[in-house]
């Protein structure tokens, strides 16, 4: 519990700063909106169409693969915590683990699932 105090402080400072700045600008700043100011900023160009459109299903594939490799990271994390204690044996085990997943990655590349066409 003691070890997490910096994290809680970080959350606290983040919340405090965010809320304070958002409320202060409401009271301190001038509030004179016009249609030009209220329009969406799109790299300086007039925005085209609405932002609320259907997204391409290709993004979903990337998200699915991201989760799978995210789970791989979860396995890496407890191993990395005591990397030194586990020594060479643990290192070889982890290399084996990653190699198996590397096969999957090569398969994806070969399959062209990451191709953006």
């Amino acid at each position: 519990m003691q070890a997490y105090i910096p994290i809680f402080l970080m959350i606290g400072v983040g919340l405090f700063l965010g809320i304070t700045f958002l409320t202060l600008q409401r009271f301190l700043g001038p509030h004179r909106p016009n249609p030009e100011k209220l329009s969406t900023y799109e790299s300086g160009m007039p925005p085209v169409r609405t932002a609320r459109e259907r997204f391409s299903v290709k993004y979903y594939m990337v998200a699915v693969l991201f989760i799978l490799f995210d789970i791989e990271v979860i396995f890496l994390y407890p191993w990395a915590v005591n990397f030194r204690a586990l020594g060479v044996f643990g290192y070889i085990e982890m290399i084996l683990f990653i190699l198996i997943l590397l096969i999957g990655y090569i398969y994806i590349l070969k399959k062209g699932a990451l191709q953006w066409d």
Partner: protein
Amino acid sequence: MNLYEIVFYFFAIVTVGSAAVVVFSRNIIYSAFSLLFTFFGVAGLYVLLNADFLAVTQLLIYVGGILVLLLFGVMLTSNTISVELKTGTLHILPATILVALLVGLLTATFWTADWFMSKRASDIAAQTTSKEIGDALVTTHLLPFEIASIILLVAIVGAAMMARRENPKSQIPI
């Protein structure tokens, strides 16, 4: 109230409050985004229970992965963003019975469970689970660990298969 309780109630309020928004919001995007805070609050509760590995898993997988997938699921579907969800009250009698049963079950579990109570907070505070889990993964639980990679491999292959029908043109040399 000591610091521990303050932090606990903070995370409990975040979790329950955002979960309520998930259920009651009429905009599905708001629901999905407030699920972020529910997951975050649960991760905080895990930290308070000294389950630090579980907390990291919660943050990485649920907040970082599952939620993104869920948001994509919403954005890929047509018209869900603009259409208001219909939230009506239906089937009051079966719902009441089911909820009453669930509440009864949870309350019974709450009273009969043999809760672990530490006399001093420092008894459990010193331990971190990540180290032991990492230790167990490559020593005593080696086979499940390697099998997990095989399962992940199968999932990757399955995802690639689903995403793309066999198309010789799309194959690229590496």
